[in-house]
Every structure is written in structure tokens, then in C-alpha cells.
């Protein structure tokens, strides 16, 4: 019957549409690698976060273990407060781990790198990392380099 064919075609159409959605969620986006909802949140304070953005990667030993959830400025200390949502699989991070901001490649995106500490206690939801190292800002680096070169030349001249 004709209605039967119509129904079969509509079934195929809906299946194709759902398959496309599934592909977009699993293959194209990060739904499979990380579910943001059931992770735990930790915080770190930095003097300067450089070009770090919300959703930037959080890595340990090069492995993606979380993402930056929000970035705030502490109104008293004027430090940047970075909240990170961590993958619940990695819930054994030592409490005295430290956070630094690195750049992927020379011009790449910035990310938070976590160095594991040695403590037995582990980081829990809402904890703040005590040790942190700010982003390297290229202008500052170049400025420092020129300054030190200049003073070296002066020393050599005397």
C-alpha cells in the first residue's frame, strides 16, 4: 500500500536525522570525551592568565582532564580566579598539586597545566590550588630579555 511506503520513508528519514544528530554529538563534539555535568570543580588563583578563556583545556602530563568553567577577578587581591570542571575519572589528584598556564606551541591556545604534588590527601569539589604560576606574557618576556641584555652590555663595557 502507498501509506505503507510513506510510513517507511518517514521512518528512514527520522532515523537518518537522529543518526546525524548522534554523529554530531559523539563524533564531532566532545560529548563522548567529557560530560560537564557530573565533574567536580576546583579553583586556582593567578596573577595573570594571559589569553586563557572559558572552555580552555586543563591538562596533566598532556592528558585532557578538565576544562575551564569560569574566570573571575577577585575584587580584593586583584587576582584572577579560574574555576575548572574536572573529569570525575581523575578524582585522585593530590591536594598540593600546582597549576600553571602554558601555551600550546608558539602561537597556539593557552591551557592550564596541573603538576601533581606528593600529598596523600586528594582534591575535592570546591578546593583551591595553593600553588600557581601565571601565564608567560610575550611582551614581558621580551622586555625582560632586552633589559638583561642591556645591563649585560653595560657590564661588559666597564
Amino acid at each position, binding site marked *: 500500500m502507498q*501509506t505503507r511506503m510513506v510510513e517507511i520513508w*518517514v521512518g528512514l528519514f527520522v532515523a537518518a536525522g*537522529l543518526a546525524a*544528530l548522534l554523529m*554530531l554529538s559523539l563524533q*564531532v563534539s566532545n560529548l563522548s570525551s567529557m560530560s560537564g555535568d557530573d565533574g567536580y570543580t576546583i579553583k586556582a588563583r593567578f596573577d595573570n592568565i594571559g589569553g586563557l578563556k572559558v572552555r580552555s*583545556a586543563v591538562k596533566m602530563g598532556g592528558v585532557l582532564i578538565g576544562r575551564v568553567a569560569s574566570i573571575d577577578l577577585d575584587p580584593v587581591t586583584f587576582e584572577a580566579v579560574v574555576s575548572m570542571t574536572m573529569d570525575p575519572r581523575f578524582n585522585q589528584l593530590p591536594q598540593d598539586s600546582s597549576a600553571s598556564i602554558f601555551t600550546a606551541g608558539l602561537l597556539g591556545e593557552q591551557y592550564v597545566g596541573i603538576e601533581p604534588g606528593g600529598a596523600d590527601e586528594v582534591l575535592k569539589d570546591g578546593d583551591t590550588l595553593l600553588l600557581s604560576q601565571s601565564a608567560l606574557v610575550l611582551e614581558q618576556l621580551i622586555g625582560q630579555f632586552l633589559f638583561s641584555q642591556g645591563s649585560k652590555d653595560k657590564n661588559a663595557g666597564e
Partner: protein
Amino acid sequence: MNGLQWLGASALGFFRRLGRGHLFFLDTLVALPANWLRPRLIVQQTYAIGVLSMIIIVVSGLFVGMVLALQGYNTLVDFGAEESLGVVVALSLVRELGPVVAALLFAGRAGSALTAEIGLMKATEQLSGMEMMAVNPISRVIAPRFWGSFLSMPLLAAVFSAVGVLGGYFVGVGLLGVDEGAFWSQMRDKVDFHDDVMNGVIKSIVFGVVAGWIALFEGYDAVPTSEGVSRATTRTVVHTSLAVLGLDFILTALMFGE
């Protein structure tokens, strides 16, 4: 003085149409739930609106994805960042091109057909005849077609994006030699499910409602002559395209603007 009168008359006409359009939308909304008692009507319209639009959606999606990959590659390769090609292709498709281009194609393929069909039904007194048979044309004719557009649009947009990503993959990985692993992993790294995929789906749902509404209203409100129907069909394509592009800007600003 004549110019002023013309201005006033067109403004009044515009607002009258706007009012009729909204009343029509409300009538349709009221009629929507009861339609599920007769799912066959919805299935039929989903066929006419969705299934028959698949070919144009798949072909266009494929080519748009392939062009994106070619163009993106030429730019990215200058920065040695050709491995980000997957990200460029996927983000453009999922966020913008998928919902928007699918909606524009929908307006041309399905929307115009809907308007012409309803307009001709009106011109040949079929709608009037239904009313005299105590059948409400809004719930018998309009509502199932509205369901059809509402259900089809997100699926069509998803198919468009998915096929586009595959097209980009064929060109990027197959033709231009981008590393396959980097293509997919970078994509998965940068494309967020909530912020990108879901927002794209929300866009396409909104576009489906608007495109269906405009097409059906233009048909229902058409002057019941051949000229009136042809004008209404043109208006459907023009108004839907403008509405989709305008709404896309607003939605993008709301979703991705911080």
C-alpha cells in the same frame, strides 16, 4: 498628502496582516495537540515536507562542506594550522551554516510548495468546503503541516551538518592530505556539545517554527486567484529567508555573545 495617505494605508495594512498572522498562529497552536490522535496525517506531511527535501539537503550539505574544507585549508596552511581544518568545518556547519542554509533551502523547496498548496486549496474552495462539512481546516490541513515542518527542520539541519562534515573530511583528509587523527581529535576538542551542537539544534527548531508559520499563513491568507497565490509563494520565500537571517543574528548574539 497622497503620499501621507499611502504611508498610513500601508502601515495599517501591515499591522492588520501582522494581527491576522498572530491570530492564525494561536489558532494553529490550539489545534496542534489533538493532531496526535491521528498521527497518520502528520506522517504524511513529514513525508511531503521532510523526506522530499532530503535530496537537496544532502547534496547541498556535501558541497558546502567540501567548499569549506578547500577554502579553510588554503587559509590555515599559511599558518601551519591545517590540522584545525576539522574544527573550522565543523564549527561553521554546526553553529551557522547547518541551521541557516537548511532553513533557506527549506523555504525554497518545502515552504513555497506549502504556500502554493494551501493557496490553491483556498482558491478552489476546498477550505471553504471543509468548513461547511464541519471540519476545521486549521486542525485538518494547517496543523499537520505545521507539525511536519516543526519535526523536519531540526532533522534536516542535522543531516546537512553531518553530511557537510563528511564532505569536509573527504576533501580535507582524502584530497588535501590532512592527518586523519588530527582532523577528528581537534574537532572533538573544540566543538562543544552544549554550546555548539545544542545551540545549532535550538536554532533549527526556531527556524522550523518560523518557516512553517510563514509558509502556511501566506497560503491561508493568499488572495484566492492565480496571481494571488503566485505572489504569496514569492512572499513566503522572501519573508522566510529574511526572517531566518534576522533571527539567526539575534540568536547568535544571545547564544555566543558573552
